[in-house]
Structures are given as C-alpha cells and as structure tokens.
C-alpha cells in the first residue's frame, strides 16, 4: 500500500487536511457571528431589518456555494480589486485565495446559521421575553441576557448540522485554488489512476474522522445544555 505512505510523504495530505480544518474553523466563527446578527435582524421589531434579514437568508441560501466562492475570486478580487492579503507578500496568491474562500464560506453558511438560531428562538416561550421586558430590559438586552442564551441551547443540534455541512463544503474552495483536501485528492487521482478507489477511500475516511466527532460532540452538548422547563 505504497499509496498510503505517498499520501503522507509526497502529497503532504496531512497539510491539506490541516488547510481544510483551518478553512472550516475560521469560516465557522465568522458564519456564527454573521448568522447571529442576521437572526437578530429577523426577530427584531423593526420592519426594515426583518426584510433585510429575510432577504439575506433567502438569496444566499438559494445560491450555489460554487457560485458564491467563484464570485469571491472573479468578482470581488479580479473585477473589483478587493484583496484580503498583503500584495507584496510572497504568499499573496495563496493567502488571498484562502481568505476569499473563508469569506465565501462564512457568508454562505451564515444563512443556515441564522435559520438554526431562529429555530432556537422559537423554542423559547414568549413568556421569557415578556418577563424580561417587564423588569425593564430593553430589546437588545432582552435578547442578550434572556432569549439568545436559551435560543443557542435550543439550536445546538441544527448548528451541529451546519458545521458538518461546512466541513464538507469547504472542498469547494479548491475551485479558486485553495490546496485543501479535495484539491490534493484530485492531483493524487490524476497521478495514480491505478489505485483510484484507495485514494477515494483515504479522503473519505479523512472527512469521516473530521465530521464524526462533531456529530457526537453536538449531540452530547444538546443533551447536557438543554434548558429544563
């Protein structure tokens, strides 16, 4: 099984999976931030914000991820000149593509995060917000101290689903030249068509190793952190 040792030595497969992990984690953080803001807009009493939030979710969620990622590169960078890295750096192209991919993945998955959080908000009984308002908390403090902490706990399972999807969707970054796992897989398959299934297997197992613990972790968290009513 020399192909397996080649995966580690010649192709630096571990580095590729490390890139996948970085892509996933960074995008997850930004998607959570953006998604929380969008969810708050959707549940706010301000009509304009509700419409903007709903528009964000519906437009972004309905756009193929490949299109979003390609747009980040061709549209934002090449056409509009948005660069996210230092142009004089030797690693400019790699850094810029990586960051553009993080941008695209974050914006895309934020729409799913927003909906997961909104479903969490729906698990919080109306009386909780009423009680918060009744002691004089204004809207944002009611959200921050009473509604959102309970909403996140009610949204752990769907948020876990989004993170698993994000881990696998990070492979789309390869279309703008980010050397994550699936990009390396493509190269390996071109070099070694004779052991195609083994190459497939290696990368499939790699992704299972990444996603399985996420599923287990989020399931246990959803039980442990559930709000008792």
């Amino acid at each position, binding site marked *: 099984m020399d192909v397996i040792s080649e995966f580690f030595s010649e192709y630096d497969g571990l580095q590729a999976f490390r890139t996948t992990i970085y892509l996933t984690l960074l995008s997850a953080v930004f998607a959570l931030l953006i998604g929380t803001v969008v969810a708050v807009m959707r549940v706010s009493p301000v009509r304009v914000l509700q419409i903007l939030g709903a528009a964000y979710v519906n437009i972004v969620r309905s756009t193929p991820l490949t299109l979003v990622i390609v747009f980040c590169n061709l549209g934002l960078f090449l056409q509009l000149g948005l660069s996210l890295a230092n142009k004089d750096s030797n690693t400019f192209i790699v850094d810029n593509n990586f960051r553009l991919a993080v941008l695209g993945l974050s914006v895309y998955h934020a729409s799913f995060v927003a909906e997961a959080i909104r479903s969490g908000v729906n698990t919080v009984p109306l009386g909780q917000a009423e*009680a*918060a308002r*009744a002691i004089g908390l204004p809207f944002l403090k009611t959200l921050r101290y009473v509604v959102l902490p309970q909403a996140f706990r009610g949204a752990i399972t769907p948020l876990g689903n989004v993170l698993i999807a994000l881990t696998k969707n990070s492979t789309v970054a390869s279309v703008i030249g980010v050397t994550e796992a699936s990009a390396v897989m493509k190269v390996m398959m071109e070099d070694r068509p004779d052991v195609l299934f083994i190459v497939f297997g290696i990368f499939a197992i790699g992704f299972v190793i990444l996603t399985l613990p996420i599923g287990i972790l989020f399931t246990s968290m959803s039980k442990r952190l559930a709000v008792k009513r």
Partner: protein
Amino acid sequence: MSDSGTLTKTGLVALTDVNKHFGELHVLKDINLSLAKGEVVVVIGPSGSGKSTLCRAINRLEPIDSGTITLDGQPLPSEGKALARLRADVGMVFQSFNLFAHKTILQNVTLGPSKVRGQSKSVAEEKARGLLERVGVTAQADKYPAQLSGGQQQRVAIARALAMDPKVMLFDEPTSALDPEMIKEVLDVMVDLARQSMTMIVVTHEMGFARRAANRVVFMADGQIVEEAEPERFFTDPQTKRAQDFLSKILTH
C-alpha cells in the same frame, strides 16, 4: 377607604377611556380606573372579560388603541428606552411564573437590578438574598426554576419583581396555575406585601385574598368595568345583575 371617583386625576396609576381591540373583538371598552398610592385593587370577572388584558396594558405588554394610561402622572411612552424605564418601575407577576429558565433563582432576582439599574453584583446579590428570605425560598437560591415547585417559583417571581423597587405591582392570575396547597403560600406573601402598603392590581378569583387584603374590588365583564365596591360589600351585596350571576356561580361550589 378611598373614594375612587376623586382619584381619577391624581392616582398613582390612572386609566382614562381606555379601549383595545383584538381584531373584531372589543376587549377593553372605555375603561376608567384609578389607584391611589398604597391601594390594593382586585380585578375579578369571568374568563374573557378582559381583566388580564387590562393588567398587561398597564405596563404596555399589550398596547391600547385609544385612551390614556398614566403612571405617577406620566403617560406611558410608546416604545424604546423610555418604555423600558417605565416597566422597570412596574413589577409584574405572571400566571405561568416565567422565571428565566437558564438562570439560577438568585440570578433571576439579580438580573434586573444589575442590567437595568446598573447595581454591582455584590449589592444586587445581597438585596436578592434578603428578598428570597422574605418570600421563604432562601434554600433554593442556587437551583434552577425547573427544580422548584410552582408555589416556590411564583414566590421567586414576586421577589424578582420586588428587586426593582417597583412603584406598583401587577399580578396577572398569580395562583391560577398552582396546585391548591401551594396557593396559600403565594397569597400569604401577597397579603404581607399589601400590609406594607405596596400599590397592587391583582387579577384573581381568590375571594379570601380580596377580603383580607383588597381595598376595592373591580368586577369586569365583556370588556367593561361593571361594578366597583369594597370587598365585603361586593361579595355580600353585589349591585348589578351580572355580578350577582357571576358570584352565584362561583360561590355555590
């Protein structure tokens, strides 16, 4: 005993010509009601009579369509920070307790004082412990609401409202969701509060409480105030047919 007629302009809480609709349904019809400082008013009436809506309108959990509601002479602000400030001065106790499910009993009581009044943690906690002692749930301070009985939860809810030093307390059917043996422990706290001259509006069917603690009973039916009288007179000699019917139904069982 205060004469309600002369208080309309000067009351701590005053409702003037208040109207409210839920779609087609006219739930509050020309409500006029005024409470002097320290007065305890019990609102009684059949379900659907609008008494809960009346209670919730006073801190604007239900906005009204027309009329004015004033607190301490100030009309209720419509939205935003000013409304939040007003609500901080009006304590509210709900039928379903509505304790913050993700916070401990102590945190439930300190949240308002620390995040609305800006009190330091130690000051807020000391006061909260005092209030929990007053309502008799000191031992439960570090538990979560779901671990307490309904009666205990409702007493915590009263402590949470009192922590804001409210000018007036609203009780929206505070004992209706409780098992019979827990009703007394909640009513005892409320009677105690009434004795310490807290201004209170209490929506309830507990006639024992009304007799012991109320200055006045307001009887509502079909969105209107049908009769107002001091408790003893209301229960023994109701003047309107509607009140007589209602009392005969709840007194014969």
